[in-house]
């Protein structure tokens, strides 16, 4: 029997997406839909990182997939009913394939950059989830990406990761830079985030009664308590990276410094004057960070606004200069 569509053929949509990406996506989509019968189209699309229209195109594509001898029951059969996706026949695509070496290596490189007690364990597990033939390439590839040095001792991170996973409060020995003192904080650890190249714990500070970011490299000690907390809501987590709601800080940079600054995450170009440099804006930064950032370009950058940030910058220079006089 030659292959034909199991049901009426949908009109062929132009394949806008890369066919390889589509294959990778459907190899996840089918088993995921098998595991979650009646999953809403919208949710499945979001999970697969595509629009609803693209997901429906994927489902159409899958209608034509099957195995010889291509009898009606030899085809994949996924259908939508009342905006929900069901799988009638999965043709053994009931679990996703193992990690490819680049998937496992990307995840492994990210884990190595964060650090923690479990790094070697997770690397070993990732390796075992790559097809045996590809494990050597995985080993090699892991050594070809270095996403950064861990921000704090493995033991401290290990405990934080445990507390985030189990939703337990932590007690931190923390250095507060604005007051130059080390003190104890009790925090409900929500998640970790990165801002301007630094790692932070984002969590609810019990004494201050609000969620705050804590730089990981300023945490000296961490202990996990028995006290549990309710998981944070979406709205709460959405603030994890927006550390300051103050007005963005503006910095003027010389041409050479501008190129470097703009390659950093979070720096936005406002205006470029040929030969004279650029004006950039940084949202969510505090004044102290902005002063240090500008000074890291030697004499080629200055904080121009808002006025309080400018004052902070000028005062900082004045005090630094005093050491040299």
């Amino acid at each position, binding site marked *: 029997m030659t*292959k034909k569509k199991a049901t009426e053929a949908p009109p062929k949509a132009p394949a806008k997406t890369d066919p*390889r990406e*589509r*294959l*990778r996506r*459907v190899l996840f989509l089918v088993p995921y839909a098998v595991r979650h019968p009646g999953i809403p189209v919208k949710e499945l699309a979001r999970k697969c990182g595509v629009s609803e229209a693209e997901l429906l195109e994927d489902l159409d594509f899958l209608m*034509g*997939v099957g*195995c*010889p001898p291509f009898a009606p029951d030899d085809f994949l059969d996924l259908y939508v009913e009342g905006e929900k996706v069901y799988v009638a026949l999965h*043709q053994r695509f009931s*679990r*996703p*394939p*193992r990690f*490819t070496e*680049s*998937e496992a290596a*990307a*995840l492994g490189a*990210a884990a190595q*950059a964060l650090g*923690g007690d*479990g790094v070697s364990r*997770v690397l070993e*597990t990732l390796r075992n989830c790559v097809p045996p033939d*590809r494990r050597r390439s995985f080993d090699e590839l892991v*050594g*070809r*990406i*270095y996403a*950064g040095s861990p921000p704090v001792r493995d033991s401290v991170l290990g405990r934080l990761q445990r507390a*985030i*996973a*189990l939703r337990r409060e932590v007690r931190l020995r923390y250095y507060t830079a604005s007051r*130059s*003192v080390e003190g104890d904080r009790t925090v409900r650890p929500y*998640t*970790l985030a*990165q801002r301007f*190249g630094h790692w932070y714990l984002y969590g609810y500070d019990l004494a201050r009664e609000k969620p705050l970011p804590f*730089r990981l*490299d300023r945490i000296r000690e961490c202990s996990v308590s028995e006290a549990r907390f309710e*998981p944070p809501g979406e709205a709460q*987590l*959405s603030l994890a990276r927006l550390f300051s709601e103050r007005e963005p800080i503006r910095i003027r940079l010389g*041409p050479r410094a501008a*190129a470097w600054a*703009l390659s*950093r*995450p979070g720096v*936005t170009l406002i205006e470029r004057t040929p030969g004279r440099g650029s004006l950039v804006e940084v949202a969510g930064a505090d004044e102290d960070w902005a002063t240090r950032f500008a000074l*890291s370009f030697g004499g080629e950058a200055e904080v121009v606004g808002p006025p309080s940030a*400018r004052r902070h*910058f000028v005062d*900082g*220079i*004045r005090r630094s*200069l005093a050491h*040299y006089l």
Partner: protein
Amino acid sequence: MQKAERLLDLAAFLLRASEPVSWREIQEQFPSDYGGSEEAAVRKFERDKAELLELGIPVRFVSQDDDAGSGYLIDRDEFYLPNLELAPEDLALLYLAGSVALAQGAFPYARDLVHALNKLSFAARAAGASETAALAARHLSRGEESGAANGAAVKASTLEELSVGVTAKKRVHLVYEGAERGEKTERDVDPYGLYQSGGSWFLVGHCHLRGALRTFHLGRIAEAKVNTAAPRTPDFTVPRGFELREFATREPWEYTVHAPVRCTVRFDGPIAPEVRTSFGRRAVLREEAGSLWVELEATNAEALMRHVLSLGERAQIVAPRELREKAKSILALLLRRCG
């Protein structure tokens, strides 16, 4: 039949088979795909097999004593993603590291990372960690979209292109804007690895223009194009003994610009922990009468001076004298300009 469809059909066919399937039978079941001359059909099938493997689907040839039993199969144990037996904190490590990496907006193999996190959610459920991380990742990536207009999207696609070159060991053609003179040069580079330092990504590789190992700042790569000829044949081998870590953990003042110079930096008053670690593993730190003294060797003293300036008002360069004078004149100039 379209290739994507054929590959899935073939995978479904081999997954269903309980015995190895002979080449003859595969040809019979896919007559329009593996028809034509035998040589062309075999090569097409080999390409398909390679593509399936790149998707994580290993097709194996099993040879039996009698030819009748020999053939191709997909070993289900080798195919299906197993359950990940990891403790909650280890899963949290994977979820948090993966989602934060994605939220950065530019990470090598970013697309692979998305697939990896999806597969992880299938193979291991950690109530707290996975949901928290997934939620955070969604919000974080939304937050980064504003940055996309600012060249971050370009950076992400460059990084993706370079990642392909690193994995497949294919040469890349770069248009690069030099840091000092700002002129654009074109060159071929054998990409050995990618590293991140201070929030920026760098490529390390053998530069054919300079005939030596070079580091390239991603923000200065205007264009990157992987050699598309013979995609499954490597263009180079990475030399034995090459350690990406050595490049990645090099401090900016350790880049070779001039002969080594002994430098001394002094801090007064309370010092944040990250300041101590910011000088790297090779610096010698000692405390004396309430001050912290840092001794190190620099081959790019200018970079050290910038670092010290960025550490704020408690830091000062003590030696060498010329560097101290330079820091002083920069601060004085800035004050005149701003004051």
